[in-house]
């Protein structure tokens, strides 16, 4: 079921288009990634969806829960905003309030009754592993903890849509993983998530849908596999321990329906006729011949590769 839809949205600043004709659909339950370089327009896109700014042209519509009747997000923002949770790049907390006070403050502003709010806060604190720190001032927390608290504040009123701008920036890899895991858990609870990030690995791991934006234009968007499809490779690369093993592998692969094998010294580049069949047989050969696999460059392109391809193509 659709949650947010952007129709031909254009945003201009001083006659300069920051976003051009963007059309996207975010469905309920999605983890939607927006990726792009700095200055590509991803934050502008997020701000449009979050209601901070209005489009110069086009429309952003919102579908209320259990309804297919769309509402203009910006015209009805006062009603819609309570269903949105927003976590900006920087932490959006009161540094001089404790963890619990921050949650309580925002929860009460959403007019949640005290009993429900107490339960929500306890659950969130346990969920984000901040229960033991609930009496700490938020400024006393580490970066990762602050990010978790920030996320908790965005979730305290149980929004339908959670928007995150660069949630893993400024965090070390362990904390990044922690946050990613947390977001997956949040999504499991039925919250639709939109993430803007240039940490493509994070996006790749968590998002089911993605939009790649470059110079204000959405170059591709949709389910991760759909996005990848145009960029699928017609070959894969494999590297084994020794020359003997390499030769053995070449001999075994020759009987399979393969268009060509290119020997690149340490590695072999294989162009199969039927990729699924070849892959299955390859794994079987490796197992039977007890080959030691050093590296296997799969045919599925990474998000990073796709992104690089798009930006290179756009530059050319």
């Amino acid at each position, binding site marked *: 079921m659709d949650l947010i839809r952007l129709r031909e949205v254009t945003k201009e600043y001083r006659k300069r288009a920051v976003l051009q004709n963007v059309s996207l659909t975010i469905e309920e339950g999605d983890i939607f990634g927006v990726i792009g370089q700095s200055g590509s327009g991803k*934050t502008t896109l997020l*701000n449009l969806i979050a209601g901070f700014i209005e489009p110069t042209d086009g429309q952003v519509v919102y579908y209320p829960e259990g309804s297919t009747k769309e509402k203009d997000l910006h015209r009805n923002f006062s009603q819609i905003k*309570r269903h949105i949770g927003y976590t*900006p790049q920087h932490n959006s907390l*009161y540094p001089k309030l404790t963890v619990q006070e921050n949650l309580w403050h925002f929860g009460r*502003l959403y007019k949640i009754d005290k009993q429900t709010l107490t339960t929500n806060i306890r659950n969130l604190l346990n969920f984000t592993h901040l229960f033991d720190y609930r009496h700490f001032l938020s400024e006393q927390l580490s970066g990762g903890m602050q990010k978790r608290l920030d996320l908790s504040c965005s979730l305290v009123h149980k929004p339908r849509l959670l928007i995150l701008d660069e949630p893993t920036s400024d965090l070390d890899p362990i904390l990044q993983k922690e946050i990613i895991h947390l977001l997956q858990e949040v999504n499991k609870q039925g919250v639709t998530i939109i993430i803007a990030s240039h940490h493509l690995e994070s996006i790749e791991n968590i998002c089911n849908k993605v939009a790649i934006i470059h110079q204000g234009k959405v170059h591709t968007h949709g389910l991760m596999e759909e996005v990848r499809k145009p960029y699928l490779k017609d070959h894969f690369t494999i590297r084994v321990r020794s020359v003997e093993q390499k030769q053995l592998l070449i001999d075994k692969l020759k009987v399979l329906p393969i268009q060509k094998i290119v020997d690149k010294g340490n590695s072999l580049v294989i162009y199969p006729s039927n990729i699924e069949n070849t892959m299955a047989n390859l794994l079987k050969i490796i197992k039977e011949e007890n080959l030691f696999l050093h590296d296997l460059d799969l045919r599925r392109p990474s998000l990073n590769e796709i992104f690089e391809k798009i930006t290179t193509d756009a530059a050319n």
Partner: protein
Amino acid sequence: MAAIWLLTIKNIKLLLRAKWSALIVIFAPLLLILLLGLSYNTSNSFGIVVGVYAPEFTGDINEFTNLLKEEQFAIREYPESIESCISDIKGGSVHTCISLPKNLHVQDNTQKEITFYVDPSRINLVWMVQETVKSKFNIKSQEISQELTQDILTKVEDTRSQLSTQSTNVISAKEKASAANEGASSVAQKLQGLDLQAPEATYNTSEANLTGTLSNIKEKLNEAVVIVKDAGLEESKEDEVVSALAGPVNIINSFLDSGTGDLLTKLQTDLETVKGKLSAAATTVSSSAETLSTSTSSLQEVSTALEAMQNSINDMQSKLDSLKVTDAQTISSPFVTKIEKVSGERTYLNYLFPALLVLVIMFSTMLLGTTLVMIEKHSPAFLRNFFVPVSKFTFITSTYVTNIVMIVTQIIVILGISLFFIKDTLGSFGSVALILFIGASVFTFIGMIIGYLFMSEETATLASISLGSVFLLFSGVILPLEAVPPFIRAIASFNPFVLTEKLVREVFLFGAPLSQNLLDLGILAGYAIVLFVAILIMESLLHKHLVHKFMHRHHVFHRQREKQMKNI
């Protein structure tokens, strides 16, 4: 040294490149000086209203008020009572009241008392007014003193002139009196020299009587002869009658010729002697009469001269008596001035307290209002508030209430502590607190508006202080507002500081009920409402812009940080 210069240049560039900072740093002092220059570059007292009470506005009272008008004082006459004038001082519409006597003419030795009623809480104004008005009184006093002295001197001069005239008269009278004296002495001597001793001889009176009778008869017969002769009788008849009469005459002659003749001779001799003496006495009396007549004339003149002198003395006496003012003190200072304080005798702290209180409240609330808005605007949580289902009205009200809570605490502390120094003012605390509450609301909203207008906390604080200073400088606390031109004063009278301070002063110092000041209170409350609505409008117009700016700022910050991280 080079580093200091480099950093200084950098700081100046940063300051000037922030538009509002540059505007505030450069133009705020210029504007302030310009405003002050335009307003106070004068020695005139444009707006001082002097209330004059007199039982009757006579010519000399009007003359005096005209003197004050020359000083550009506005004069308001109070013919009914001084109380209404005092009430206007408390209300601030009159700066000083002068209670004058019925007229300014000094008629006796009593000094004329002139009472000044001043509001001692307006210290800077009181002395100015008092000194200026008193100087006018001194001029008038000098005039009257001069008049009195001139009057005395004129009368003394008249007396002197009259005395000089009378001195000549006295000399003349003296000479005449001396002459009369001499005359009298001469008469006295002459009279003393008169021999009025009667002859000592004795006469046989019966003989004498007979002789006398016979002589008498003889004379009668002689007279009868004369009458007969004169009667024109015929000669015969005449002869017959004369001869008839001659017989008795002859008989008498012959009688007299007999022994009786000696006696008669003796008598005749004595008579002759007496006759001689009488003749001498008559001569003496005659000459004495002349002398006495001369003396009488002299004495008459002396009397006339003395009468003239007496008149002159009476005139001098009456002239001198007409001098009612003879007391040296009254002549030298015909007026005695008295200063009455309309609020009763108190300490300077009492007088300063309203201004100090409002000053503290104004700067506290304005800065606090600005700071609270800036804190919220710059708070990391600013964005999150964008999503909460809370109206702008609630947000603004919460900022206002926060400010008011802080200020109410301050007010309680200030008023509480002030009780130690300023006793017996507890009764007015309720009204004062209400006024301060409304005043604090106005200043809070002003501070909040500044907070919304400026992006940098430093600039906003500077703007708050600058605006507070403008309010203060145009409040009459530092320089009397009455010294500025009327149009600036008219604007300044709507200064919220002026309104609040005036209200607090009236309630605190004069114990005026709030009902007397509903207009000012209403204006203040009106300000608060208008400013609140202005903030609401401003917030509606600016909020998205602020959010956008906030996000942009953070976005730029993160981009820069990413770049730095990449470089590392």
